[in-house]
């Protein structure tokens, strides 16, 4: 049971963050949407509402600095994915979340909490395809 307490505490912390974003700023804390909004403003050559978006992203990064200072293992990536694979994965995540209108936070937490049918379906689909991909990748590479 102990091994589930930290994930639960992490989840509760995320739930608090997402709720604070809504009650303070009236915004959905969907990370791909917040990042995509900055890109949209750049393409339109306007500053628009980029300030709070960039500050949110800087907060995510600063939280990473704190985690690294607390315990570097929390940010450890020992999966050994090749650079081409990381590039393909990044392109898929960027393109997919932009076209699909959300990621794990926007659809998976904020949308499901609203009982949005779009978000419930999107989350089911990306979970199923994540599971298929991770499983097939292990079978093909014979490793992790």
């Amino acid at each position, binding site marked *: 049971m102990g091994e589930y307490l930290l*994930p639960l505490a992490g989840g509760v912390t995320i739930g608090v963050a997402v709720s604070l974003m809504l009650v*303070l700023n*009236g915004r959905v804390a969907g990370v791909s949407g917040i*990042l995509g909004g900055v890109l949209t403003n750049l393409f339109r050559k306007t500053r628009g509402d980029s300030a709070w978006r960039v500050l949110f992203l800087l907060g995510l990064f600063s939280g990473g600095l704190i985690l690294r200072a607390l315990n570097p293992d929390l940010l450890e990536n020992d999966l050994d994915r090749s650079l081409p694979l990381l590039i393909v994965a990044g392109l898929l995540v960027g393109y997919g979340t*932009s076209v699909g209108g959300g990621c794990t936070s926007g659809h998976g937490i904020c949308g499901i909490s609203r009982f949005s049918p779009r978000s419930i379906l999107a989350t089911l689909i990306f979970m199923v395809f994540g599971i298929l991909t991770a499983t097939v990748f292990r079978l093909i590479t014979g490793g*992790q």
Partner: protein
Amino acid sequence: MAGVAAFFVGLIFALGLGLGGMTQPRRVVGFLDLFGDWDPSLIFVMFGALAIHIVMYRWIVRRKAPILGDRFHIPTKKTIDGPLILGAVLFGIGWGLAGYCPAPAITSLATFSLAPVVFVASLLAGMALSHWRRNAGTTGS
């Protein structure tokens, strides 16, 4: 003030991700690999976040407006369409390949190591590609 709030929300969000294990791609892939040596612990991250926000969402939207803003910006789209499904499929594949979804990848930039930097740069390129296609009028979303 809304900017300061957004910064601290991002910071708390990142601490939750790190505490929960979402910033360790091996654990994410271990969670998604149901048929291997399955590590179910990350489902509790989702349970924890949903338990809080399902309740808080309903309580918060009873307000007329957020504390630092003039109105709530909440998605109202209801239709299930092709882009939603295609996007979720592609995102799921990318997530299963690298073990990063957008928020943990941005948080992991704090390590200044190659994997998250390459992943986030490619993620931005993928988003830019979708914006470009949309502006070119090839997709209807």
